[in-house]
């Protein structure tokens, strides 16, 4: 412990200013709150998280920190904003689209201004970093240039160590993508739809193959030379063009396997007044939730696509129940004995996740699993897992077995 006077003396003697004293320039223009609100609102359906922050030793740390939650229960960890809400694309679901009859006031940040707000919010621990998306502006490349300039001001001038996620605008040039990747932790191109035909319905001015998929290929290829700590991601509007869950799954498989996507985000379609899609039916939020569960089964639980196909009904949709249970009913013919089952077998039982499966394996090395309480203590959700387990030679009675 040292005295407050000594700490004050050390701080005053330090010339190192990580964020730049320019932040406290009295002449600096005060922020336009209407602009912050309008451009913030433009990204409220975008999903992101700072799930790959960099630690002091420059290692990628897996989990980020949520600095707040909105009243819809979603985490706020980044300053998520548009650079501009002026857009020449005619996306039929988007409030910023040129096709929207309810044209709100158009705003745009200046790179300096946006960097200053980000730094102030970061320094006071409101956020972990910046998520920057944008309308196309006059043209994609000049808007991308401004977005990159903002990231450059943060990284180079202010030595900003927080997280930066930049959206790659549809049709952006290879050079602007390369610059964005050099400065950010993660980049993403929004897929929005699953195919050219669905894209034509949702956004007639965008070319699915050229504007979206080709940009994702650029990112994949550039990642061989440029380190992008948190990789590239993508996002889909679920149900905007009536696509089935199976179509979404097939598209996502392609994205994971061929384009090296780190993860996909799903956003259930919600009609916005003034847009051409305003009279379309709102997609239920559970559909988004079930798609995330399906995604986890593929990415984290390592289920094969063939197994996941069991979760879809004849029309190619997931039902509003846990897809893992639907798969287990079809795949697990015999009850699993937790005393002898492998990791791959354990993880296929509903109520047992990667962590509890690992715990069961560790526990088994020195102990015997003889009762349900042992499993409950290891984090297994025993009510869900019970019908699929055989513990000490005993199985739970189920309605199916009674009928047989």
């Amino acid at each position, binding site marked *: 412990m040292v005295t407050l006077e000594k700490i004050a003396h050390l701080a005053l003697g330090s010339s190192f200013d990580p964020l730049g004293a320019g932040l406290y320039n009295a002449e600096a223009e005060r*922020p336009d709150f209407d602009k912050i609100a309008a451009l913030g609102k433009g990204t409220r359906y975008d999903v992101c998280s700072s799930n790959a922050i960099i630690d002091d030793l420059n290692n990628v740390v897996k989990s980020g920190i949520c600095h707040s*939650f909105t009243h819809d229960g979603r985490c706020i960890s980044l300053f998520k904003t548009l650079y501009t809400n002026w857009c020449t694309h005619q996306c039929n679901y988007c409030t910023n689209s040129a096709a929207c009859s309810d044209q709100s006031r158009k705003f745009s940040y200046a790179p300096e201004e946006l960097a200053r707000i980000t730094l102030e919010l970061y320094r006071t621990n409101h956020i972990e970093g910046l998520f920057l998306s944008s309308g196309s502006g006059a043209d994609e490349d000049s808007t991308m240039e401004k977005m990159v300039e903002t990231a450059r001001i943060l990284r180079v001038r202010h030595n900003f160590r927080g997280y930066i996620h930049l959206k790659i605008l549809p049709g952006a040039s290879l050079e602007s993508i390369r610059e964005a990747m050099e400065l950010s932790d993660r980049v993403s191109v929004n897929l929005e739809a699953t195919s050219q035909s669905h894209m034509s319905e949702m956004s007639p001015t965008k070319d699915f193959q050229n504007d979206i998929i080709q940009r994702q290929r650029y990112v994949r290829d550039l990642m061989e030379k440029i380190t992008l700590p948190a990789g590239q991601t993508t996002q889909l509007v679920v149900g905007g063009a009536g696509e089935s869950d199976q179509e979404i799954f097939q598209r996502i498989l392609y994205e994971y396997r061929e384009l090296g996507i780190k993860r996909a985000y799903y956003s259930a379609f919600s009609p916005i007044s003034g847009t051409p899609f305003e009279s379309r039916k709102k997609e239920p939020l559970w559909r988004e939730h079930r798609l995330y569960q399906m995604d986890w089964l593929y990415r984290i639980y390592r289920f094969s696509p063939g197994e996941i196909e069991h979760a879809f009904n004849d029309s190619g949709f997931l039902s509003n129940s846990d897809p893992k249970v639907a798969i287990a009913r079809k795949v697990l013919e015999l009850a699993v004995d937790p005393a002898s089952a492998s990791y791959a077998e354990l993880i296929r039982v509903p109520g047992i996740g990667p962590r509890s499966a690992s715990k069961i394996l560790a526990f088994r090395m020195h102990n015997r699993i003889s009762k349900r309480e042992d499993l409950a203590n290891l984090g297994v959700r025993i009510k869900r897992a019970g019908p699929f387990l055989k513990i000490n030679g005993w199985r739970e009675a189920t309605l199916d077995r009674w009928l047989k």
Partner: protein
Amino acid sequence: MRVPENFVFYLSAHRGCNDHLLAEAKKMNAEYVELSSDPKAVLIRRMVYSVQAEVHRMRGFVRLKALGFKILYGYLKPEHRIGDWICDHFAKRSPSTIIALGNSNQSWVSLYHNGSMQKSQGAGIEDTIKAFQSAMGAMPGDQGIERIWETYYASQYCPERRNLQSFNHRMPKKALRSAGLSIERNANGCTLKDFFKQE
């Protein structure tokens, strides 16, 4: 494994920890604490998780205010003895900046300077700030950041997704109080209807 190798360190910060429990914990290893159903191990595991959870929440929820460009200060009243850890975390995040956290009774101060951490503890945060002001001279205060945050926070809310159960689960009132959050707490206006599932 969720129980860290240095779990005794976390346990020692728990408000309910005593010498007897610490001595018991030192005889165990992390794997045993994580997997065992021994009531002592279960108790220690819960206490370690509780401290870890509070550290994580406070790192996210504590808000800092700038005093010039050399001091950041904020409100913190943790349940466990983690005040100096949180302070060190912010000091490393903003090197060469004094971090002062605390409440009316207690305060923690950290400065990460030239690769080493300088620490101090004192009485209430107001006294600590006054001491710095007298040592360092007058400094400009609030830069209007609260209003920027309030505007941005409101812009991110999707009314059609309103889910107060989820909000309350992730931002429990206890954590809001400990970190002195006011914007999130005050924005939580709701009616009985919100607690019943909507068709």
